[in-house]
């Protein structure tokens, strides 16, 4: 929604947005390099480069970089991208700044299916959780949307948000029931639910990257319409846009992105909430720009948190989910304080 204003102001805002985006990309590249080089055994950059271009099978440093750090970095980046973009879409569709995969019940649904997999089918490996997490996220999103449409007003932002929380309530309760009555399940689940990038092999990714790609393409496709939706359904309709179609396509994209991310890294909170808010603070409510920023800032946040988690408690490490919350809360608070909200 670029208002037809005098060329100079629009141009300067546009160049500011581009500069910001370029700066974020540079920051992301730095973090990627750090993620490849740093860990329990810090690797010189020369060795990292050598490991990527001409690996020696006998060099342990090369093995660490290729077998552990590359998959971890790629997965972290994709998970961050998926969650940030999905959060963007959710806030646009529900018009609620609180919407994120956690608050709409999608994480809880994925957790429920994973716990069922552990408790009833005896699955124990992250690889085995993937399809359950994915199915759980999809089923929850479909159910939330279906209940939203049952209400006489249709799927309004408020009914969607309430339905999402209610479904999350049921799923969380059943999850707790299952893990509290079965120590074996609790033991596997508590390590999944904290959210981690460690020990996820590159083979997992081979199966799942197409889902993220399709989700991302759909998201970019609906970006413009989401901006219109922010003005309300009536305005969007008046401008010839089909609000129902936009919401439906967004829902598909959200399921693909969240389901895959949760399958890969566990129920990571906060990325989907905080990244769109950072993006909005920089670019305003243009969802195309918000999506572009989310694509860069999501991976940046997740990888940064992962690197920090690896460094601060050596030789052990802190799970990425915890570090994200610790980094994310101050960022969110600072952001929220900058915005001039309704004063009471």
């Amino acid at each position, binding site marked *: 929604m670029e208002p037809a204003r005098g060329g100079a102001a629009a141009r300067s805002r546009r160049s500011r947005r581009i500069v910001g985006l370029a700066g974020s990309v540079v920051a992301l590249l730095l973090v990627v390099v750090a993620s490849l080089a740093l860990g329990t055994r810090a690797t010189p950059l020369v060795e990292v480069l050598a490991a990527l271009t001409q690996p020696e099978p006998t060099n342990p440093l090369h093995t660490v970089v290729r077998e552990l750090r590359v998959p971890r970095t790629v997965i972290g980046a994709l998970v961050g991208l998926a969650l940030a973009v999905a959060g963007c879409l959710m806030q646009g569709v529900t018009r609620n700044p609180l919407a994120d995969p956690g608050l709409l019940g999608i994480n809880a649904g994925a957790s429920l299916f994973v716990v069922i997999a552990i408790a009833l089918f005896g699955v124990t490996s992250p690889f085995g959780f993937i399809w359950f997490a994915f199915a759980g996220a999809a089923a929850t999103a479909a159910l939330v949307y279906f209940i939203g449409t049952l209400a006489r007003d249709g799927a309004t932002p408020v009914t969607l948000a309430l339905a999402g929380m209610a479904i999350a309530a049921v799923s969380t309760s059943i999850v707790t029931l299952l893990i509290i009555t079965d120590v074996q399940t609790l033991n596997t689940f508590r390590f999944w639910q904290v959210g981690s990038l460690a020990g996820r092999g590159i083979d997992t990714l081979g199966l799942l990257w197409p889902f993220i790609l399709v989700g991302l393409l759909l998201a970019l496709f609906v970006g413009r319409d989401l901006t219109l939706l922010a003005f309300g359904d009536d305005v969007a309709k008046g401008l010839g846009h089909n609000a129902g179609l936009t919401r439906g396509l967004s829902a598909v994209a959200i399921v693909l992105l969240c389901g895959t991310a949760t399958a890969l890294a566990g129920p990571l909170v906060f990325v989907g909430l905080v990244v769109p808010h950072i993006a909005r603070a920089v670019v305003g409510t243009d969802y195309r720009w918000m999506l572009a920023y989310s694509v860069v800032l999501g991976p940046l946040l997740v990888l940064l948190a992962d690197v920090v988690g690896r460094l601060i408690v050596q030789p052990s490490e802190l799970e990425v989910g915890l570090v994200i919350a610790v980094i*994310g809360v101050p960022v969110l608070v600072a952001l929220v304080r900058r915005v001039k909200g309704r004063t009471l």
Partner: protein
Amino acid sequence: MTTSLARPIAPTLPAVRRQLARRVALVSGVLAVLLAAIVAVSLGTGAYPISPERILPTLLGAGESKDAFVLFRLRLPRIVLGVLAGVAFGIAGALFQTLLRNPLASPDIIGISGGASAAAAFGILILGVSGAMVSLLAFGGAVAVALAITLLASREGLSGYRFVLVGVGFAFLAQSVIGYLLTRADEQEAVAALAWTVGGVAGARWDDIGVIAVTLVPLLLFLAALVPRIRTLQLGDDTATGLGLRVVSARYGVLAVAVALTAVATAYAGPLAFVAFVSAPIARRLVGGAHLAIIPAALIGAIVVTFADFAASTLIPGVVVPAGIVTGIIGAPYLLWLLATSNRGRRNA
């Protein structure tokens, strides 16, 4: 639900008000009867059944000693604690949601329960404490998070939008801390801490109930004095200021009551997930209109908790299921059903 407002000739304001008051009274009456029925049934049911004709004499002090032991030592404490905690959570949810003008703004979601849980989990898993000390820590955690949110969200006054967003941040932080603590604990301790973070009334003792009751009475009296001001606040800030209300101090007063109710109930019954979240929307949909519905919300809170505890103690024989697990399973579907059938979803929420 809409009849009074949809009449072709608009009734006078006092008439509408009378009709609404009648409806609130009717809903509250039905809910109170329902609550009494649940209490009666759960008093008599359990591993040691007590028939209805023995319950009343025993309660009046004229029954057998075995009946008296089961009723006064085992069943009555959990029921009383359940009712008190349910009332506190139901009212707290209604106040938060009204004050912050967001249906998602219940203590579950804005981190106040999370602060209590994280503090309790820290006490159980790291400090190795139990009992009253855990309650104290939980109370401190809830109050500390509430204070932190208020301080961080205030800038030239308190904004509902900022409060809710900062609160959600704290909720996520608390959730991550609890998850982290759980991965570092051994199994048995992890189960104990997890059960606490869910909440339940199984371990209720009369001492705890005394503390809650003594705290609740002044809080509810203070709230009763505040109700006219809350009604004025609901008209919007400008109107309220125009009517001579000191908006900011009224808001802080309501917020303080809501936080205190949550903190006290959480300290002794645990967070009892989603009671605060579901009670007020259900009450508002039953009463209709944008009515504050504090008494119906309190009754629904009490019903949800007592029924959940009854179901939790009878559903799976031999397994102690915390009531907080069942509150979500029974409260949330009912809310969903109301969402799906209500024709006024947009206005009420």
